[in-house]
């Protein structure tokens, strides 16, 4: 028996089999008194119940934060959080921010300069100087 085995762990590919939404919790902080929370209070009253019912996989928490600007905090499966201040925004603008938080992966934003990122080896292979007829210099 000359073959021995090395340990490895299979890599998860979210969405390849099952898809798990990466946003797991949304915190809504509002203030009853301050004017910057006016839109947030309207959002919590009018739009949030429908949004929460449509997304059972997200945990929603609404809590007051008197004397502060309204904030929405998204908690993600990778352990990161993403807070957005929504002062002086209208309810529908806040809904856009909430959708942004829902769709985010929780990763740091980074610049993508490749159209496709793949873990599979290249179909065409890598050019080798040692095969074929070679290259005349």
């Amino acid at each position: 028996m000359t073959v021995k085995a090395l340990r490895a762990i299979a890599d998860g590919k979210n969405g390849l089999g099952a898809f798990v939404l990466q946003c797991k919790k949304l915190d809504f902080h509002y203030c009853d008194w301050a004017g910057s929370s006016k839109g947030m209070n309207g959002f919590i009253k009018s739009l949030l119940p429908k949004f929460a019912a449509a997304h059972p996989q997200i945990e929603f928490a609404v809590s007051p934060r008197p004397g502060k600007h309204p904030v929405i905090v998204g908690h993600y499966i990778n352990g990161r959080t993403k807070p957005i201040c929504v002062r002086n925004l209208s309810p529908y603008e806040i809904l856009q921010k909430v959708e942004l938080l829902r769709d985010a992966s929780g990763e740091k934003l980074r610049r993508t300069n490749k159209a496709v990122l793949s873990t599979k080896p290249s179909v065409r292979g890598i050019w080798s100087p040692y095969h074929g007829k070679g290259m005349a210099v």
Partner: protein
Amino acid sequence: MKRIRPSRWSGQLLQARRGAGIPAARTPLCLAIRCQSTSSVPASDSSTLDSSSSASPPPPPLPAPSFDRAPQSAKLAALHARLSLSKKIPLQTLARALVTPSADANPNFNNANLAYLGSTIINFHVYEYLVCKWPRLPMAILYEALRAYAGDESLQQIARRWGVEAAAAPGEEVDPGLLQWKAGEGHVVNTRWGYIRSEAAKGKAWRRGLSSRVVLDSDFGDQVSSSDPERLEYNALQSEAFGSVVQAVIGAIYTHCGRDEAKAFVKSHILSRELDPSKLFQFKLPTRELAMLCAREGFEPPIARLESETGRLSRTPVYVVGIYSGKEKLGEGAGASLDVARRKASMASLKAWYLYSPGNKVRVPSDMMEQGAKPWTAPHIDIGEII
């Protein structure tokens, strides 16, 4: 002699399965009255107790959150929805899947039985997939491939990507949507399959052959330890606790929804993970093994030929060596010396043999359990590895 330990086969597991056929008659798990020695107050007596309870001391706290609180937990409901579980699986069962034996030792309230059921289902589906997809994998590689998909570390990653979080410490007051575990002194070994070897007393020097591993040892080819459990590290205990959640969820799906749902869940959450089995090989004598393989299969003996080279007199030479059996080219490798290149070429040829696959659409035995399945055609399974 080898010893079977029927006490480790859970009786409650069988009970749960018996009831699964008749959903209406099944007693919901939430109705189970907690009568542990730690909490001696049955729920039915609460009305009579109210008048006289002022004198008696309050009952000691439960080791894990009560199942009555499961429907109120937002985390639990979110986890249920995140996994797209069927409505047939109650939140109480999901709450129970999150209570490990390290938090609550009572098997009526922890996830030990569900986890054992789930682990058998996971291992069965992963194993049949591996054997049918790569029919020539050597046994040692097969064990490690199984561990890569269904081992505790892999299952821990899955549980974490489901958003399962551990409570700081298990207790009655904790949210039931958090994983209840602790790395304490009294470590309870999870239920698992295997025999205790009689030669285990002779120490580690005793050689375990691979074929005896198939029969005697655990699902991953690990030796089952004797009565005193081995001391595990914190990380191993943690991955065992998180892994048991995944196993218990799959056990719960099997119990409440049946075989097909459990298979679909295993396929989408565990078999969809990516593993390159060519990364698992470690060769000691590849050239000799290749010669043995060619002799066994009746090929002509392998010959290494130099295909091209560059910079033989320089500091960084490159040799490309191909291995030929007659006119067939078995493999090719490049290296900085002739010997390294030959060894690499032998490894490439051996991997080309071992990693033969009939394709991605290979059928597995459990496909035959579906309604109206096409007649079974036996897949090609290799006779075994080269000795």
